[in-house]
């Protein structure tokens, strides 16, 4: 399925804005994404398998904080990252 990558993480995807990854849950998809683009998952998910506070995940257009969110073949996953701070 399609995964949209935020600017700050496109160094991992050779600047590709939209990439493919597979999984029946968001967690599986992020592991698959990490296999394809090593290191990218840890920037978004900490070692306790928690989403980092300022990274947002949208599945089927809805924001989710549930890493176990179910995914279906036609779903799109959009990853967004806050740019607050100075």
């Amino acid at each position: 399925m399609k995964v949209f990558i935020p600017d700050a993480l496109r160094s991992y995807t050779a600047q590709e804005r939209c990439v493919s990854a597979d999984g029946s849950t968001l967690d599986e998809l992020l592991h698959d994404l990490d296999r394809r683009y090593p290191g990218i998952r840890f920037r978004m998910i900490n070692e306790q398998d928690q989403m980092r506070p300022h990274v947002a995940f949208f599945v089927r257009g809805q924001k989710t904080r549930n890493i176990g969110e179910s995914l279906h073949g036609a779903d799109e996953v959009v990853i967004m990252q806050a740019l607050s701070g100075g």
Partner: protein
Amino acid sequence: MITQGVDLESGHVLIVATRKGLFFLQGGDDRSNWTLNEPMFLGHIINHAVLDPRDRKTLVASSSTGHLGPTILRSEDAGRTWQEAIRPPAFQKGPKGQVVSHTFWLTPGHPSEPGVWFAGTSPQALWTSEDDGATWRGMSGFNDHPDYESRTEDPQAGTPDGPVPHSILIDPRDAKHMYLGLSGGGVWESLDHGESWSPLNNGMATATGDPASDEMEIQPDSIEWLPIGPQHDPHHVVMHPANPDRLYQQNHCGIYRLDRPGDTWQRIGRNMPAEVGDIGFVMGVHPLDDQTCWVFPMDGTDVWPRTSPGGRPVVYCSRDGGLTWQCQNKGLPERGWFTVKRQAMAVDVGDPAGVYFGTTSGDVWGSMDSGNNWSNLVRGLPEIYAVEVASIR
């Protein structure tokens, strides 16, 4: 991950880690004309970056951003190309729920152990790599010790930006002999390659106060002195490279020296001018002369502004092991209100030794005659966290 490379083929190079990227200042063989390279990893928080003195081509840098998880960046060609660590420092998943905030300190291992590195993270934990920083594992003798909580500082209290390990020092005569500074948490020594640690805090004054506050006062004598705990706050500990039995320390509470096998720190900062005091962050030592060291005093009065006392930036140098101190401010601005953080002073191996420091206002100052005369090498960088000097041959 590839980014713009730099040429580090010869001369002296300052590696400047900042809040918004990594910079290189190249000084050539004679240190007379310093050139600033384009920023690398612009926007990334670089707490520390170190060139491996064992091969003079491996560079390791700690990186994080405001929102993404922390990682380690590494280069095997002196900064020309970079890769991200395959497995950066990360705690085990478990009930303690610890999450690495950032890697604060990096130390190359002993010359007999090529490829070995050590790192300190916040929350306070130690890590080692055996493959030039590609993969890291926790040092369980420290991280999982039953007394971990009493030895270290609560991540929710104390040091701004989190409590940190620092000053991971390797005895050049014995790879198993190490020292460690915890801010807060004191000075520790290991004789078994970091498997076990013993406190080395005798003689050190301690800090006390509201642990949730940034401001801590030096503890009065009426309060019981304890050998371990976050009230001990070494800011920077240095092992003299030519005399590994001599340690210098800039502590939250003063300037100290320890000559091993002794185990009691001597407060050599008592010999500083009273109006200047002996509060600060950095400690620099001469590469050959174990009697010569440098400090950059900070204002530790009132609410501890940690700018130069009276707003007059000055380096102090001792050439007799801390018995006497000389003011070195020729060329420094008459007034200035910046801080020099604990990793932001470096001393090169030139003759005479070059001394450098970076400021929170983004300036790098250097002296090519051991502190007698200072000049500005660059202005306008982001807030400087660390300055390392490397001599490339």
